[in-house]
């Protein structure tokens, strides 16, 4: 008996029952969404523990085994290894906090039954990506996630910027998805299977040019979804325009699950036997360096608070891609292992701190109605709790030692400096920009209060609780950085590298 199916069943049930539940007047839909996402969080924790105790889970839809009478997988399989389990945990956690936060944050908006349906579908799509072991199933979940996020970015459709950002995101996003679909079509035409593990087997027997073309299409599409630098423009518009609870999910989760996780999964679990990993790795590293510098440097000059956070997300994606890229080039070595563990760790950390920062930005926006940093001087006077949360989030993202951002960035710095000192120094330059951006915001917040700010006050408990859960998580994770890294992140990185066991669990685990 595995808990895994419930991770899809529960959000799906919640989303589909939402129109009916919302026929009840009052707070029914908010309560229902909270219950559903909380239950999903519990199942997520359970799945995480299950994977940690018993190793990779393989689940075939419709039967006991993925094989019918054939000797190759014919059913859709879900395969959750340690990396997938970490993603499941962080997705369910941040989504629950975002839903909880929405109750107060979204109360002035209309059409909330659609909002909660979409947010649950967004969560569902991301969870699907994290658990699936079937490449077409992956595409379906990718589209579920993407379409829900297009709709959520443009949710406040009475504002011009939401529509503008939504259209931009949708046009380029569907192009990127179609690249992924084209890649899948090519792979299916060449190899005749859609199961990831079995594709790896077929590909190792017969590496062809088609596989390489498919990989380049995948990388193109997925780098877009992750907001890597030349194609980060949608992100800088979409994050500010979306409601803040959605920005927290977009920035904390969507770009990592739909982008980074998918790249790691596709490269390490499908293409590893067929390609030269160093080439792909260097490609990723080049994008990472550009992303790192562009994202962080653009964050320094922003005057819009959420846009600053969005560019900072781009910059942090650069770190994660850097770790991933070094993990590919230095495959099988100690440096690569550290880098990959650092990337996975930073995914988790950045999801928490960026979610926190966007929730803070949402609270400011909710109380004051402005995102312009020049008008927010002296916020600490009237919104002390919110400012404190921001202080912790900013310190964590810069990477100050008693907080969680330190260890993950340290792993990435250390591995990149050992790998290539030039890349290490690029990472340091990125951090310098990042520090400048956040110190500037802090100086604004702690300055002399202006008249507009004097009328503000801290938001209600329902908005503060999610923020402070994240603050506590950030501090607690910061106290035990190396234990987490040794017990969770490094095993996850080893697990991700180990394609043999990925395939063996699929094929032999029937």
């Amino acid at each position: 008996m595995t808990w895994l199916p419930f991770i899809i069943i529960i959000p799906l049930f919640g989303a589909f029952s939402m129109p009916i539940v919302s026929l009840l007047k009052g707070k029914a839909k908010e309560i229902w969404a909270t219950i559903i996402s909380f239950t999903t969080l519990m199942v997520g924790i359970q799945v995480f523990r299950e994977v940690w105790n018993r190793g990779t889970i393989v689940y075939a839809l419709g039967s006991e085994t993925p094989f019918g009478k054939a000797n190759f997988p014919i059913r859709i399989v879900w395969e959750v290894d340690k990396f997938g389990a970490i993603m499941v945990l962080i997705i369910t956690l941040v989504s629950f906090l975002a839903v909880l936060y929405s109750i107060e944050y979204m109360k002035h908006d209309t059409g909330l039954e659609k909002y909660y349906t979409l947010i649950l579908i967004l969560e569902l799509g991301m969870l699907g990506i994290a658990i699936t072991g079937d490449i077409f199933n992956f595409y379906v979940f990718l589209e579920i996630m993407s379409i829900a996020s297009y709709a959520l970015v443009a949710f406040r459709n009475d504002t011009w910027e939401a529509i503008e950002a939504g259209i931009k995101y949708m046009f380029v996003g569907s192009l990127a998805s179609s690249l992924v679909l084209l890649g899948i079509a090519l792979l299916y035409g060449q190899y005749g299977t859609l199961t990831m593990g079995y594709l790896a087997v077929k590909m190792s027997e017969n590496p062809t040019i088609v596989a390489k073309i498919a990989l380049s299409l995948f990388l193109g599409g997925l780098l877009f979804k992750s907001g890597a630098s030349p194609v980060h423009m949608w992100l800088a518009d979409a994050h500010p325009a979306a409601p803040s609870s959605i920005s927290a999910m977009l920035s904390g989760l969507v770009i990592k699950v739909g982008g980074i996780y998918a790249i790691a999964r596709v490269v390490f679990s499908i293409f590893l036997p067929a390609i030269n990993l160093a080439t792909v790795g260097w490609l990723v590293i080049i994008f990472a360096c550009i992303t790192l510098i562009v994202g962080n440097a653009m964050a320094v000059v922003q005057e819009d608070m959420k846009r600053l956070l969005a560019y900072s997300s781009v910059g942090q994606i650069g770190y994660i891609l850097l770790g991933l890229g070094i993990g590919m080039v230095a495959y099988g070595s100690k440096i690569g292992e550290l880098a990959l563990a650092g990337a996975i760790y930073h995914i988790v950390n950045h999801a928490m701190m960026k979610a926190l920062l966007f929730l803070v930005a949402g609270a400011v926006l909710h109380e004051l109605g402005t995102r312009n940093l020049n008008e927010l001087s002296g916020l600490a006077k009237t919104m002390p709790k919110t400012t404190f949360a921001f202080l912790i989030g900013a310190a964590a993202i810069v990477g100050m030692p008693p907080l969680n951002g330190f260890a993950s960035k340290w792993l990435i710095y250390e591995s990149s400096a050992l790998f290539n000192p030039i890349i290490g120094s690029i990472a340091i330059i990125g951090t310098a920009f990042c520090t400048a951006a956040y110190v500037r915001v802090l100086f604004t917040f702690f300055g002399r209060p202006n008249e507009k700010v004097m009328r503000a006050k801290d938001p209600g408990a329902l908005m503060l609780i999610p923020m402070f859960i994240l603050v506590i998580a950030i501090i607690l994770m910061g106290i035990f950085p190396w234990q987490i890294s040794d017990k969770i992140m490094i095993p996850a990185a080893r697990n991700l590298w180990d394609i043999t066991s990925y395939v063996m669990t699929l094929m032999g685990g029937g």
Partner: protein
Amino acid sequence: MSIIYELIGLILLYIYVSITSLLFSGIDRKLVARMQRRIGPPILQPFYDFLKLMSKETIIPNTANFMFRAAPILMLATVIALLAYTPLGFPPLFATKGDIIVFIYLLTLADFFLILGVISSGSPYGKIGAAREVAMLISREPAMMLGVFSVMWGISKLGVKRPFSLGSLYEHNIWELGPMVWVAGIILIYVFMAWLASEIEVGFFNIPEAEEEIAEGTLVEYSGRYLGIIKLAESIKEFIATSLVVAVLFPWQVRIPGIEGYITNLMIHTLKVFIVLFIAKTVFRTVTGRLRITQAVNLLWTRVFAASVVGALLLVLGVRI
């Protein structure tokens, strides 16, 4: 069990360093007065000042936020934590591999808390002082970091138990590395003296607190207890920064086993700190006036940082050859 001993050690060190550093500032004031043919205050004057500040009424400005009150405490806490990583004639209490980064981080963090508290007062004078403090902070630290890292790298080549730990400074020192490194060492003495003067903000570098220009700048809004705490923390920080310079450049100690060895070494270390501070603080602030902020930043980057680069390169070449 050892953690309890370390905590007791930290408390004792804190008491010792508080008293010593206040005592030195009394001596410093006396010496400056004598250099100007004045009699000067009694040597214990800083203690009276501290007690008086603690007993005074503390005024919180209307525009101040929570950080105004928290910053002095956080600053003092950071400085006390820093003591556990400071070489004081013997390896630091919490010496581990790579603890130099913690040291630099905490030293900078103390300044950062002060800046945050000053900004939080809402006073425009404070804001100008804080902006100057940030400019100085960014300009002075790279020279020191380069110097310390190159020295530690050079020492780690001689084989030490914990590379890049401040404890390793007592196993070997840079003067053992040969004639080329002696030249580098002399350049680094200049760099570290300049860094120390800018860290404790005296002489040329007494810019963020410039009384005549911006009315005490950083500390303009602080009064009473908080001012006393900040003065104490700055005084301890002065001792710690000088300890770093002493440990990096002049780490010679005597070898006596047992507890009296620790005490003797602490005394020798304190004496060396006093000598270094006498040159970098007392003499420097008597014979020079303050620069403008642009001049100071320019000086730190073109004269001090450049010298640090030259020193580091010479050191690296000296070790390699």
